[in-house]
């Protein structure tokens, strides 16, 4: 940098600083636009880093005050990373060679390595059932010598007594809220092979785990919850640091070690066993590329949002710059003067944004903790990341000033000095370049949509890149579109005509605002299409088991039917519940298998059922099977003749599986039984019979696949039993919840299923809402800044209007018209641009593994809302908020 350039920058920066102080309102607006993303990312980064618990940060919560947590594995030998939670490998477990295979009782073997003078206490984590107010729930139990100093830090006393003594227990808030509080009895249920055992403990206090909250948890002394079935032994070891060498020595006898010293101050990577070293997840190039592209798009959005403010400032400086040019200033100096505004605002905005972000992060951490069951780590400020974020803010401000800087350096000095307020003529080339880029975007997206089916991630990168290219193309087209809108404005009402023409006259201000709205809309539309398509694909793939709102109960072989009926009777009417008779395929004797043949062809039957068995029995077709009258008559006839009915519904046979075709002749049933041994199970033929048959089409979902006549089952020598119950709808969600809890309390297995249709993932719904909200906010932001900058620019024109008799509310009308022009043009341009990546990305997202079929679902309502609704809403809001006062005397005094 030459001395004169440096000097030029010094002057430019001084001018920019003065200008920033002189136009405080405008400066605040610019700072807000630059700051907001920095603040948001900074706060999010702090919450994320704080919430993220590193190995070193987790030491206390995992091992209390101990120096190490050791755990046997049952293996001969293990290899572990510095933190066994991150990575470990076992050796010799499948090996037949007899090894030491340490277990629960082998604390001495551990101390043989570490030294016998160390204090040691056992620490067990297990899960148990407990009686809640309404039934039975799961809980985690922690057993250790809670009074021992080594256990300090595992739990935090909230109220009551701590630590608990023998026969006593402390529970956490989540557990207490489901029933047993301080002074109550906690009834622990253990299901063992011999049946059910209960154990009563007195709750003496409330304590929270330092690791997480939200899950039900109880803690007591070792053995308080009965013998553990856990074969591995875990101990907290104190008595001084446990070195990496100690860890390696314990690994050699099959023991995993989390050592405080190793975790807080890890030895060099080279100390790791090469086997354990390779567990790091490889950096996914695709994810990195897509993230980089997303980052660029966010930067672009911020630049576009801030652009109008910089354009207006440059415009305000235009007269000064023209005077400078008339006095011999070079275009470079003019450019630097405007760019310096970006430097000053960007620098200030970056620093301010990070500062405010840290403050907001500090406030947000406890709030975020409320929504997270895992306890956060200590407050963490990731400085290098924040430096990057501040740099991002700086860069966005400088970039936002680039275009105004270049137009300032090329401005028509004569026109500016003569007070003409217009702008340079439209570039002829840029719209064509824009169209070319849009075409390239479409092509790239199409290629990306095609390739990513097989190749994995390359397509996604291509699509994201195409999205960026398309948006840039759109930005280049914006000026022409605005000019066209202005040209065709002659027939519009006054306010709109004025807004459209004025927008076109001040393109450096309007274009970024419109582009920001357009980019936002494009993003919302693209993501909306992607999410909706994915949802559509999921919904397509969903096979309902039962009609909507209907339910079923599947009973296991040993289930107590009457107990289940009792429970059902509490929440349902008697006539809602119908027994399902059928063949119990899973019994103590093994698993029954049915095969149906016609001639030599085995019929392929595919069915998932919730009734307890896919093979039901009836002398007539049970009422719960939904059939047309003709089909029912046909099926009844076959059953009457001692045959079987194959039921099929379209939903039961997803594409690729042909439905069985029958020729009308008899179908042969082969029954085999698989022996109960889990390994090396063998099948024995049980029976075989041929019987008349029919295939009927079930109009909705078929609850079972085959309906036997009782006579046929007799011939096959099979028993029928009540395999489950069919429940006629509607079953309310409340009833469902009560029933689930009540059935879980029964000693025998009974599984309730209630058909609710396809339930979109709650996360998807949230994503959609967040998308719409974020899109709305960004659109509103873009529109508002442009509108209010335009209004302040148009002050003289508004004063003129007042002088020729405009009502005060004309200002509102004009403001609303501005918002409508900016928002409307942006939305109309952005929506089609959003279709490009949206349609493209929906292809790889929804491509079915089996069929290669893809789904596209365009969320028209969302798009209509964004394209038509939001601009109108924004316009209305702007109109309502704008000051209804015209600057009356601005021109006369």
């Amino acid at each position, binding site marked *: 940098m030459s001395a004169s350039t440096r000097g030029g920058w010094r002057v430019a920066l001084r001018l920019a600083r003065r200008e920033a102080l002189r136009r405080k309102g405008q400066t605040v607006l610019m700072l807000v636009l630059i700051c907001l993303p920095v603040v948001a990312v900074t706060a999010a980064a702090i919450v994320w880093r704080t919430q993220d618990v590193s190995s070193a940060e987790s030491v206390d919560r995992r091992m209390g005050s101990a120096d190490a947590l050791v755990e046997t594995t049952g293996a001969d030998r293990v290899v572990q990373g510095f933190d066994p939670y991150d990575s470990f490998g076992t050796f010799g477990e499948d090996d037949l060679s007899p090894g030491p295979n340490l277990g629960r009782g082998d604390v001495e073997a551990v101390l043989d390595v570490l030294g016998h003078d160390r204090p040691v206490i056992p620490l067990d984590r297990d899960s148990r059932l407990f009686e809640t107010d309404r039934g039975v729930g799961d809980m985690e139990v922690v057993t250790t010598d809670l009074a021992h100093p080594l256990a300090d830090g595992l739990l935090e006393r909230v109220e009551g007594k701590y630590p608990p003594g023998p026969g006593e227990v402390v529970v956490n808030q989540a557990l207490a809220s489901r029933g047993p509080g301080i002074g109550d009895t906690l009834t622990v249920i253990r299901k063992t092979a011999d049946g059910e055992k209960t154990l009563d403990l007195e709750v003496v206090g409330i304590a929270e785990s330092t690791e997480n909250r939200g899950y039900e948890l109880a803690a007591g002394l070792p053995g308080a919850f009965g013998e553990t079935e856990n074969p591995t032994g875990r101990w907290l070891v104190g008595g001084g640091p446990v070195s990496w060498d100690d860890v390696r020595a314990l690994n050699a006898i099959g023991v995993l070690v989390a050592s405080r010293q190793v975790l807080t101050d890890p030895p060099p990577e080279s100390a790791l066993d090469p086997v354990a070293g390779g567990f790091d997840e490889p950096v996914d190039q695709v994810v990195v590329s897509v993230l980089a592209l997303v980052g660029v798009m966010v930067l672009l959005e911020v630049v576009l949002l801030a652009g109008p403010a910089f354009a207006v400032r440059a415009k305000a400086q235009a007269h000064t710059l023209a005077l400078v040019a008339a006095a011999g200033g070079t275009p470079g100096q003019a450019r630097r003067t405007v760019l310096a505004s970006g430097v000053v605002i960007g620098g200030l905005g970056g620093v301010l944004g990070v500062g405010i972000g840290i403050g907001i992060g500090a406030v947000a951490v406890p709030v975020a903790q409320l929504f997270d069951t895992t306890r956060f780590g200590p407050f963490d400020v990731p400085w290098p990341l924040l430096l990057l974020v501040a740099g991002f803010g700086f860069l966005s401000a400088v970039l936002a000033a680039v275009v105004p800087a270049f137009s300032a350096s090329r401005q028509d000095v004569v026109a500016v000095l003569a007070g003409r307020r217009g702008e340079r003529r439209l570039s002829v080339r840029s719209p064509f370049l824009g169209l070319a880029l849009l075409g390239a975007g479409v092509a790239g997206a199409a290629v990306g949509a095609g390739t990513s089916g097989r190749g994995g991630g390359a397509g996604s990168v291509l699509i994201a890149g195409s999205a960026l290219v398309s948006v840039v193309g759109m930005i280049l087209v914006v000026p022409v579109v605005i000019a066209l809108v202005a040209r065709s404005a002659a027939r519009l009402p006054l306010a709109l005509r004025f807004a459209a023409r004025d927008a076109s006259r001040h393109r450096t201000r309007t274009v970024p605002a419109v582009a920001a709205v357009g980019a936002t809309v494009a993003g919302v539309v693209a993501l909306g299409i992607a999410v909706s398509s994915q949802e559509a694909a999921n919904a397509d793939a969903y096979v309902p088991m039962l009609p909507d709102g209907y339910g079923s109960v599947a009973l296991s072989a040993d289930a107590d039917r009457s107990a289940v009926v009792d429970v059902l009777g509490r929440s349902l009417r008697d006539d809602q519940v119908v027994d399902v008779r059928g063949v119990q395929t899973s019994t103590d004797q093994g698993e029954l298998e049915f095969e149906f043949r016609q001639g030599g062809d085995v019929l392929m039957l595919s069915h998932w059922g919730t009734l307890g068995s896919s093979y039901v029995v009836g002398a007539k077709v049970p009422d719960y099977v939904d059939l047309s009258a003709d089909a029912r008559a046909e099926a009844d006839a076959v059953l009457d003749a001692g045959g079987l009915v194959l039921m099929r519904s379209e939903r039961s046979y997803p594409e690729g599986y042909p439905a069985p075709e029958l020729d009308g002749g008899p179908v042969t049933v082969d029954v085999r039984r698989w022996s109960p041994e889990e390994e090396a199970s063998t099948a024995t033929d049980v029976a075989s019979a041929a019987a008349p048959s029919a295939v009927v089409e079930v109009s909705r979902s078929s609850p079972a696949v085959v309906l036997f006549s009782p006579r046929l089952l007799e011939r096959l020598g099979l028993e029928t039993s009540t395999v489950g119950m069919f429940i006629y709808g509607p079953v309310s969600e409340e009833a469902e919840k009560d029933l689930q809890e009540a059935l879980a309390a029964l000693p025998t297995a009974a599984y309730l299923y209630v058909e609710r249709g396809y339930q979109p993932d709650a996360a998807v719904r949230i994503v959609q809402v967040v998308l719409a909200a974020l899109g709305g906010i960004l659109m509103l932001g873009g529109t508002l800044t442009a509108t209010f900058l335009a209004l302040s620019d148009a002050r003289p024109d508004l004063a003129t209007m007042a002088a*020729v*008799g405009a009502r005060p509310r004309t200002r509102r009308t004009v403001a609303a018209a501005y918002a409508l022009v900016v928002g409307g043009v942006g939305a109309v341009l952005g929506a089609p641009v959003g279709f490009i990546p949206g349609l493209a990305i929906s292809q790889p997202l929804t491509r079915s593994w089996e069929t290669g079929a893809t789904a596209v679902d365009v969320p028209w309502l969302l798009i209509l809302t964004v394209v038509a609704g939001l601009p109108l809403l924004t316009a209305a809001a702007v109109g309502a908020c704008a000051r209804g006062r015209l600057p009356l*005397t601005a021109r006369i005094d």
Partner: protein
Amino acid sequence: MSAVLELTDVTRVHGEGPAAVQALRAVSFRAHAGELVAVMGPSGSGKSTLLTLAGGLDRPTDGRVVVEGVELGALGNDERARMRRTSIGYVFQGFNLIPALTAAENVALSRELDGVAARTARAEARRVLEEVGIGDLADRFPDDMSGGQQQRVAIARAVVGERRLILADEPTGALDTETGEEILRLLRARCDAGAAGVLVTHEARHAAWADRVVFLRDGRVVDETGAESVDLLTEPAAR
């Protein structure tokens, strides 16, 4: 002769307390139909304040401003705006055309604001532009016109809709003498056709186009020349 504009004992104080500035002090002033009155005075004498009060852009601290029999002080903002659309026309030194609107649209502005159909308003505007001699420039934008042409548009805008009171604030200030004279000629013609005009100027040469000249000093009328004339053709200047 009826007074289109009548100011009676009008006082206007800007600001309060020790910082208060008396812009006008008990000024009474009339402009009749068919009469062009010039208001002269140095900067700060209250000329512009008088004009903003007459146009209903500002309210007097004391006294009455009556336009075509209606007291402006008694009207609300909307009604005063309506007066500016239907009765009062403004011409400014800086033309103050709206650059986003064509000449015809600028002229039609007050009519459109008044609810006249855009087509009708524009036809009316073209007729008035024809009258001021620039009918062929109706579809030009202000930036593509010379200062004189712009001021003609401004005059057309001030008179369109048969408004009877024309308030002109240094309308020739930004123009050369000859073009300025053309503008004054238009203004004069409008008054001769029956409108009342108030011309604020600090140049005697322009004020001489008026029937009466009112001199303002420090917010007071200090002098006024009547309309009685000395015929130079028969009675040479006495000096």
